[in-house]
């Protein structure tokens, strides 16, 4: 019952900030990622471990190599403070982060190169792989679990 309630709350991010902060403080939404970030980084250290999806990651870069390099950098620099939420993407569990790249990473948006600072990251962890389901410039403002607003 409790778990179902949490799931429902996590899926519907419709609450205004004070309510969401209350939900976070009362433990109804996860404040910490589902996957331990250190573990994710350990798995991602192998060159064959990170798998990038084409439609939600690779297409946002001029070449596959640039996409891979950006993914390595992002996973190296990612911190728990950028964690947004855990999503239940049937049947997988994915952690979502709002990654802020300094210096910005060049992305291909609508056929043009753009230096993008804010990135949407969604991944799931398997025993030997990090499946990067989404890695693209942030499309709309997003708030981290700690309450920081990140804008595109």
């Amino acid at each position: 019952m409790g778990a179902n309630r949490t799931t429902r709350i996590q899926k519907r991010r419709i609450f205004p900030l004070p309510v969401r902060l209350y939900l976070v403080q009362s433990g109804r939404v996860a404040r910490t990622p589902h996957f331990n970030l250190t573990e994710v980084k350990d798995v991602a250290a192998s060159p064959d471990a990170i798998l990038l999806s084409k439609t939600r990651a690779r297409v946002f870069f001029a070449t596959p190599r640039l996409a891979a390099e950006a993914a390595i950098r992002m996973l190296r620099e990612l911190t728990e403070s950028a964690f947004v939420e855990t999503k239940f993407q049937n049947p997988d569990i994915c952690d979502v982060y709002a990654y802020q790249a300094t210096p910005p990473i060049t992305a291909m948006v609508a056929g043009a190169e753009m230096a993008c600072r804010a990135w949407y990251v969604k991944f799931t962890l398997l025993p030997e792989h990090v499946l990067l389901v989404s890695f693209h410039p942030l499309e709309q403002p997003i708030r981290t679990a700690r309450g920081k607003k990140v804008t595109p």
Partner: protein
Amino acid sequence: MKKLRCAQCGKGTIRPVASPGRREWYKTMEVEVPADFAIPTCDRCGEEWLSVRQSQALDGVLETGYTAELVRLASQQLAKLAGAAVEQKRIEHLLGLSQGYLSHVKAGRHAPSPMLVAELVLLAKDPERRLKELEAFWKRRAA
């Protein structure tokens, strides 16, 4: 690579697929992926998953295809311009290229830049008018 479940659709299995007709965006255009290059692909939704090592390998084969395509496009545009009785050295002069450069491009000895291909495409659309515009532009700068 072990068989993995696709995280995009949650149902399919990711298996290496090598087939003709796949295209990948590379720098300025879509380039055909060689038929024998295996890409881990979901057997249900078709999502392609590449590791870092595979991305680097794909980059290598796409660069070859990209360069070949640039040479082909440049030669095609130069043939159009030649068909319109435009002298190659006149184009080279107006585009600030060294004399004979376009012959090297046509012969495949030099890989043209995408910018040069784009310029040739624009010139070949309406050669006389575009070349006159360019000549007038450079003359104005000189005056």
